[in-house]
């Protein structure tokens, strides 16, 4: 294997919030019956995380499970382990109707943190970013300006954004533009 390279190689911007490309992240798209015991066991053993309810992410030491739709999970694992975890999940799902695919390289991830983080996202996504409405552990698939994106908030007030790799440049410039100094809205 050649050295894998993420879309923007860790690019960063700092303004009313900090924006950082998060490098390579292991991600598996899993489609199946989320209520199946077999599937729950498979993803729990692969990530250590419990099955999230709708609109949530369940995070573990080095992985997590994001609720994407009634029959889809985004499984977060360490990038180096993605193929092994994929095999593990597939083995666990033997005989079950499901589809698991490595999508790590199809994605780019960004972290947005700092006081202005909520407002930066509220400039780009039609989501209620108020402190009461968007709490740690929440996971949202949405639109970021003109592209699809998803994000969750961790317990350190950092937002983790997932988008398609091909639009990494666009999303980074969007986030940097929204985080321009002196563009604080002053509501969050």
């Amino acid at each position, binding site marked *: 294997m050649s050295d894998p390279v993420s879309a923007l190689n860790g690019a960063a911007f700092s303004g009313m919030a900090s924006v950082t490309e998060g490098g390579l992240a292991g991600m598996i798209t899993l489609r199946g019956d989320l209520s199946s015991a077999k599937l729950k066991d498979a993803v729990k053993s692969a990530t250590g995380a419990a099955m999230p309810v709708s609109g949530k992410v369940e995070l573990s030491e080095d992985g997590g499970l994001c609720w994407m739709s009634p029959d889809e999970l985004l499984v977060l694992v360490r990038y180096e382990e993605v193929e092994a975890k994929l095999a593990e999940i597939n083995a666990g799902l033997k005989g079950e109707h499901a589809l698991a695919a490595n999508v790590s390289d199809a994605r780019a991830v960004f972290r947005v943190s700092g006081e202005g983080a909520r407002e930066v996202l509220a400039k780009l996504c039609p989501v209620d970013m108020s402190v009461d409405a968007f709490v740690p552990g929440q996971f949202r698939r949405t639109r970021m300006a003109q592209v699809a994106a998803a994000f969750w908030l961790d317990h350190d007030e950092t937002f983790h954004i997932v988008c398609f790799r091909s639009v990494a*440049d666009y999303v980074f410039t969007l986030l940097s533009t929204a985080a321009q100094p002196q563009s604080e809205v002053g509501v969050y």
Partner: protein
Amino acid sequence: MSTRLANQGRLIDRSKPIEFTFNGNRMTGYEGDTLASALLANDQMMVGRSFKYHRPRGLVASGAEEPNALVGLGNGNRFEPNQRVTTTELFAGLSAQSQNHWPSLEFDVGAINTHLSRFLPAGFYYKMFMYPKAFWKHVYEPIIRHSAGLGKAPDKELKDADQYEHFYFFADVVIVGGGVAGLQAAKAAAATGAKVLVLEQTNTWGGRAPVDGGSIDDTDPQAWIEKTLAELAAMDNVTLRTRCMGSGVYDHGYVLGYERLTDHTPGEAGPRHRLWRIRAKQIVTATGAIERPLSFAGNDVPGVMLAGAMRDYVVNWGVTPGKRVVVVTNNDDAYRTAITLHKAGVEVTRILDARPAGGGALMEEARQLGIRVEPGRAIAKVTGGKRVAKVAICAQDGEGGAQEEIAADAVAMSGGWSPVVHLWSHCGGKLIWDEAQAHFRPDASRPPLGADGSGFVIAAGSANGAMDLGGVMADASAAGSAAAEAAGFAAKTGTAAVASDSDEVPMQPIWLMPAKADIKLRMKTWLDYQNDVKVSDVQLAAREGYESVEHTKRYTTLGMATDQGKLSNINGLAVLADTLGSEIPQVGTTTFRPPYTPISMGAIGGEARGEIFQPVRKTPMHGWHDANGADWEPVGHWRRAYAFVRSNESVEEAVAREVTNTRKNLGLLDASTLGKLIVKGADAGRFMDMMYTNMMSNLKVGKCRYGLMCSENGFLIDDGVVARIDEDTWLCHTTTGGAERIHGHMEEWLQTEWWDWKVYVANVTEQLAQVAVVGPNARKVLEKLGGMDVSKEALPFMEWRDGKIGEFDCRAYRISFSGELSYEIAVPASQGMAFWTALLEAGQEFGVMPYGTECLHILRAEKGFIMIGDETDGTVIPQDLGLSWAISKKKEDFLGKRAQLRSHMADPDRWQLVGLETVDGSVLPDGAYATGNGLNANGQRNVIGRVTSTYHSPTMNKGIAMGLVHNGRKRTDEVIEFPGTDGTIYKAKIVDQVFYDKEGEKQNV
């Protein structure tokens, strides 16, 4: 003259003078001035000329309703036309130019139109420009283009210097308007715990109340405003925004807020405008009311102003528009202006009250101050060119005779007040006619309805028709509580405010002054100032048969200017109703549409400009392409290299070089953008057979098959190579533009029709970087990199294998879209660039060159392969393209099968795909039509075919093309004609569409 007063001016800071220019003249104002008040303080009453007659026009209003005073603001990349001076805050260095004048504001050639006005009646444009036909292009249009329009468009070479952004916000209750009604509604709503957002379009809170006076909770309005603001600001659940206009109300409680952040401090860092995109559970429109002008002759002469506006100028900015003022009214409110002017030391020559008995307590107050009040009197006409000079007075109940003429330099008029019902109406709120107030007000029983069938907008205060302070405050309290309750919060008591009612005599509707004004007067009586519509125009429209107010609006252009008839609407439809002999409610109003006042294009675009105007999708190798001469071509949101152009060659030469090299040596194509969809499940085979026209369920694991997809209407929508991955899994390649579309197509069928089939689809397009390694040396370069066996035996044509090439884990496909020996190698996207580099390095000795999409197109056209989007256009079926071999006859069903059996689809007269070769080797123009004999019903030549793809083939060294031709397959060797748009008639022979390697030997080695 208009001038600054020694006293008054609650909003200005006289210790902070500000310099600005108007038409290049240096002027001075104060901090807190609007451009309007500062112009008046500098005796600049005339600020522009009207649209049609170029009549001198002055300030009429003091706020968003101003129709006349539009200027070009700023310079260079911050120039903006049509800026309303009444809503422009003064700042140091402001530079404004008046509009619609030539050569100058003071002397305007177009003003001659005013003397021709009897030749320019309503509907003039429609009547005049019908005949003769040729006049339109050569005479009328150039003249109209010169004289029409308001401000000048900004220089097209310059780009807006500022930044803009959007902001999404969610609230339980959004209150539009920060006057005392809005603040009181906010207080009542916020007390329940609801999340409240208050939007105020100006930079000050409280609206008109501090100007109009009265008392709220036993204190003066200003003190009450400050106290209430402080209370609201201290609450966590309240957000207050000034300079933020509630611009529109839309379905489902969607509200647009237009925030002007740096209009008053241009050049300051940060966004200039921010568009708030708000979701509200409930909306309270506390948008106030707008005063109506009175319709008398000369009511457009600069110096004639709304009475309320004149009061604003005195109280807010310490400016009087005149020294000798005549007040004319049909209601008590205008007496406040007279009293205010008098107390400020301005001479109020006369109060003309059109009501026979005059007014109430305020009239008495005015009389006691010594102001002469004349009930039952009216203005016959105002004279003066660029400034009010004389006012002719007559009886209201007459024709305008027996006039007394008095000298005056300003007229304050009041025709009553109309609630601002715009935001209530935007989403369907209905209105009722209030006979007593002679205005339309919101009908609370017919509000805009949300998804649940209940109302989501509540009007409050004077926007709801409450016309005195006591009524306003009570109504606002109720509205705020009701909104919070409707949003799911329990109402709280103890927040109501009590204000005194003033003792006013009812107004009397006056739609024409004097009541029986003759035609000479009516032709000088303006309804719509900006669009130059007069009483006589509306009357003419009615006589010509216009009954609908919507038609009359368009015929006369009443209310169609940038102010959208804020002043003219009610007066215009009252005149129409009167002329038609019907009641005003029967005539009705025109439709109110957002935005309330124009908002900037920048705000609408938000962050989407420059580099992020649109997303650009980039493959992992994009950077290399960019650094190596890529001539970019957009394909969907992707950018693909059209060709890799070297220095000292043209794009065409680069394409030819790439074609030749790929045929002779080795070419590399970045094919990462091709769609890759995984289809998996126990029913996947059955699903694949439905999706594709040909059989896919019997494809062997390890093999590939070219497939076609049709819509249920039978038309070809996509094509690509399908690979069988394992027993349950297929991988479908789609076109670059088709990946998301076909993914959605598959999901739609699975979710809506075949929801019980065990099939999942995943789009893994971007997971993989894919490189086409093409040409006689393709195998050599792969073998040099080492790894998996890519020999003909181990990896035959139309098969795939997983393995390793060099250090790269990959999936290798033996497929060819070029007719050459060809592999497509997919590697993880994160290693795509490294793989590309490895191929380039290893390929040096084999003559490697990257190639772009145009080379790809030529290679496929030489082989006669179709391209979705070239040979197809949504009306083409596979049978047209000679692809019947790819349509299964064994399958019971597939999408499009039934449609393709319909008579028109099976018609032998459908145009068929053929190859085309020009007789002289030239290139056929793209999209050209082939002409046949005779003419069609429109007198045009009959067409018998069209070009779908056309190129210069470097391999054949001649023009080659494909096209759809009537009876095409039977016409081989026939020469048909294609007239070009250049006047040339191109002649082409119908040939086999496969120009190169007809036997397909080269790809199968």
